[in-house]
């Protein structure tokens, strides 16, 4: 699983993104209003574009990010439970991405101090795919992946 993930991530070039990170305002205090929705990130088609839209550089693979309550096989792609926990110090943000969805980013969570860097939600998956947990901790981006297969079911039709 790891090999495939690295291939995807290698594609991202971190250099020019660092400048964007500096200019990025998405964590500025007072900006977390209801109207704050990162359109560019949700329209991104790749991990590279998504992280760029967040204002980050190439994420490093991390073993400190774990999936829990996340099945290897989902009986239905309409509801796939995903649990993500980060053991990285100063985790500020957790995002869930589905590689083969039309837009990769499904959800992103800001984790204030006092809130545990661990949460669960449910996402749609159009087909079997890698799921990524992208974590921002102490200003840097990290990522872990897990493959989830989506099955056909029932009587058909």
């Amino acid at each position: 699983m790891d090999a495939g993930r690295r291939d995807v991530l290698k594609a991202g070039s971190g250099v020019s993104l660092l400048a964007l990170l500096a200019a990025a305002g998405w964590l500025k205090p007072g900006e977390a209003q209801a109207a704050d929705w990162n359109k560019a990130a949700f329209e991104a088609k790749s991990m590279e574009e998504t992280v760029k839209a967040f204002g980050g550089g190439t994420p490093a693979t991390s073993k400190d990010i774990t999936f829990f309550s996340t099945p290897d096989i989902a009986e239905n792609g309409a509801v796939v439970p995903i649990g993500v926990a980060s053991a990285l110090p100063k985790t500020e943000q957790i995002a869930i991405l589905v590689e083969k969805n039309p837009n990769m980013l499904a959800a992103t969570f800001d984790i204030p101090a006092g809130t545990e860097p661990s949460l669960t939600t449910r996402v749609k998956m159009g087909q079997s795919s890698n799921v990524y947990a992208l974590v921002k901790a102490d200003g840097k981006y990290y990522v872990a992946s897990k493959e989830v297969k989506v099955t056909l079911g029932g009587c058909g039709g």
Partner: protein
Amino acid sequence: MADPMRIRANVDASGVTEVKVLMNHEMETGQRKDASGKTIPAWFIQNVTATHGGRTVLSAQWGPAVSKNPFLSFKFKGAQKGDKVQVTWVDNRGDKRTDEATIA
């Protein structure tokens, strides 16, 4: 108007409050077609904010890939039994819903 959320919040002995939220929402992707072949417009929750005593304990941005009738669970510190947790969502049409639960 949107139907209420179901919010459960429980604090354990170590002072960690677990919050579980179920929301009523179609979370329409904008990629499906109706019977006549017309695209059903996207309609989904974009922002979720949970607060405790005026302090934000979680904020989220969602896309249409979050499942219909969304479920979310998370944990935070600093609350006590009897406190209130408020959850607000806002969708891409500007509809909004706020509900609260008492921490048990």
